[in-house]
């Protein structure tokens, strides 16, 4: 908008100059007519000199007047209105990137200064709020990390102890009990792992090991891992034939496997009791590839859909079906995908099923040589 105004002013300036030029022409024409009517008293050279002299003076006066007015107008508007507003916009952008320590100093002594003042107050309050929120979040993350590690150690010992018991030999009753404990322990370890991953994401300390990998092999492995659980619940898992020549993508394979695990686990957990299906597709688009997991399960009620990517959120219906779970899976999945430069989306209808998809960029946006040259020239000056 502001840049458009600047362009408009330049356009007006050019327009005024053209009017000045036209005025000079008209002036010359009028003088020529006047001198022609005098007759033969003046020679051709004298007429030409007089026309030239008067038109030059009048034309230049008109021209310079317009240039002066337009320049002064443009200068005043630019210095006192446009530039402060552009500075404010640049300032607002920097604030948006959390550079709260910056203060703007404007030359303008009008409403814009008030606007800047209000903006500073608002930013200060936001800064305080943000600091408070960050402190609380850090404390929470630290607690989760410490508690998580403290819990995981004894749980791992229990798991190890149960394995020892199984090796020594157990009666049928004992074996059933041990299996129950083993299942509960594995669930607990998984839960704590989710907490720790979420805490890492919130602290911004998640480490990624990016490497080129074939995503279709990760999908196959993940599907194979969930097949036993799907079989237990009589869920039919189908994978579409993957497209040929799938490009390698730069990903952290362990993290993407985790995303696939969360999506597939949810598709199993919240599927129908009878006739459940899960479909996995991989679509290669121009710049990204998209992995789609579709189920015909319970779906997500419309009023809950806006919260599903948040942490610790679990829908009422989901809770009634599956009491275990942290509500962290989709939150972690979204963060991992976004860290890869991709995006997540879903569609869901209650009682009809859900479709979750995530994209991973498989190549950098190709910039043509022309575009590169234009951008370089105009930015390098």
């Amino acid at each position: 908008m502001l840049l458009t105004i600047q362009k408009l002013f330049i356009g007006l300036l050019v327009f005024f100059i053209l009017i000045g030029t036209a005025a000079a022409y008209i002036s010359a024409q009028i003088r020529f007519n006047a001198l022609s009517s005098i007759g033969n008293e003046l020679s051709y050279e004298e007429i030409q000199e007089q026309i030239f002299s008067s038109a030059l003076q009048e034309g230049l006066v008109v021209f310079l007047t317009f240039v002066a007015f337009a320049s002064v107008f443009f200068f005043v508007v630019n210095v006192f209105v446009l530039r402060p507003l552009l500075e404010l916009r640049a300032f607002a952008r920097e604030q948006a990137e959390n550079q709260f320590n910056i203060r703007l100093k404007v030359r303008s002594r009008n409403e814009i200064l008030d606007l800047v003042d209000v903006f500073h107050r608002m930013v200060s309050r936001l800064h305080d709020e943000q600091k408070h929120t960050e402190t609380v979040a850090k404390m929470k993350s630290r607690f989760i990390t410490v508690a998580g590690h403290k819990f995981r150690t004894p749980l791992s010992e229990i798991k190890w102890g149960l394995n020892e018991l199984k090796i020594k030999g157990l009666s049928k009753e004992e074996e059933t009990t041990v299996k129950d404990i083993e299942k509960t322990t594995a669930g607990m370890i998984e839960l704590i792992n989710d907490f720790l991953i979420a805490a890492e994401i919130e602290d911004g300390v998640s480490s990624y090991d990016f490497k080129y990998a074939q995503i279709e092999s990760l999908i196959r492995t993940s599907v194979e891992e969930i097949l036993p659980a799907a079989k237990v619940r009589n869920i039919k898992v189908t994978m579409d034939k993957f497209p040929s020549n799938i490009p390698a993508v730069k990903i952290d394979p362990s993290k993407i496997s985790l995303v696939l695990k969360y999506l597939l686990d949810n598709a199993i957990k919240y599927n129908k009791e009878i006739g459940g299906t899960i479909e996995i597709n991989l679509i290669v688009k121009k710049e990204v590839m998209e992995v789609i997991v579709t189920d015909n399960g319970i779906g997500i009620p419309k009023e809950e859909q806006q919260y599903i990517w948040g942490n610790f959120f679990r829908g009422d219906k989901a809770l009634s079906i599956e009491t275990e779970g942290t509500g962290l899976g989709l939150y972690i999945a979204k963060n991992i995908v976004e860290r890869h430069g991709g995006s997540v989306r879903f569609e869901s209808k209650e009682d009809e099923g859900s479709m979750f998809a995530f994209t991973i960029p498989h190549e950098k946006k190709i910039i043509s040589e022309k575009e590169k040259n234009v951008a370089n020239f105009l930015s390098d000056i």
Partner: protein
Amino acid sequence: MATFSLIGVLSIIHIISLAISAIASVVLYRAEKRSKNSMVRQFMWFFIFVFVWMATFFISIFVTTNTFTESAGREIVTAHGFFLVGLAFVARIYAKMALPKYEKLIFNVTMFTAITVIALGVYLQSPFTDITIIKANTIIIQISAILTALILIPVLIFFFTQSFKLDDAIAAVRSFFFGVGFTLLLWHAISLVLIPTYGVIPWIIGEALNVLAFSLLLAGILYSTPTTKITKKYTNAT
């Protein structure tokens, strides 16, 4: 009297254009040292040749004891020759951005044409032909104007188009400034063609517009987005 005024006006105009092209050359020289971008270097060469163009004109007018017409008539070929050589660099920048495959070809053709025009002018003014200086001058001016228009029309269209296409605000505004600047330079070329029909007035205006054109080109070079100023002394903030 009129002749004196004209020389005075032209001198002022050329001094301003001279100063602008000198500043632009220095700014571009520093930018080229920083970025090592060949297009920036070619833009610098354009301004250096504009400087030489203006200097040749200015010196010829300033040192002459003859009338303006005779003086300008003798120097106009050489002076415009420098401008045409400068334009060859603009054509090269345009070619690199719009038609990268033909960059060298376009540059070589425009440079060759510019040199040919100078050679033709020198030949027409020489004693080997019966053509008068004024007549030779008119021919060269018209050829130069057509060549200038052929180079500048695609260039200004390109810059205007880019100013609306580019996402980067600084690049878009710079492109717009260049578009307007080259449009005004084109007006100068058109005004030269109008001299035989309408006299020197459109040319004088064209020369005056040159100042504006170079000012806008310089504005484009110097344009940058205002950045926030960090100050701890700002008392309005709570």
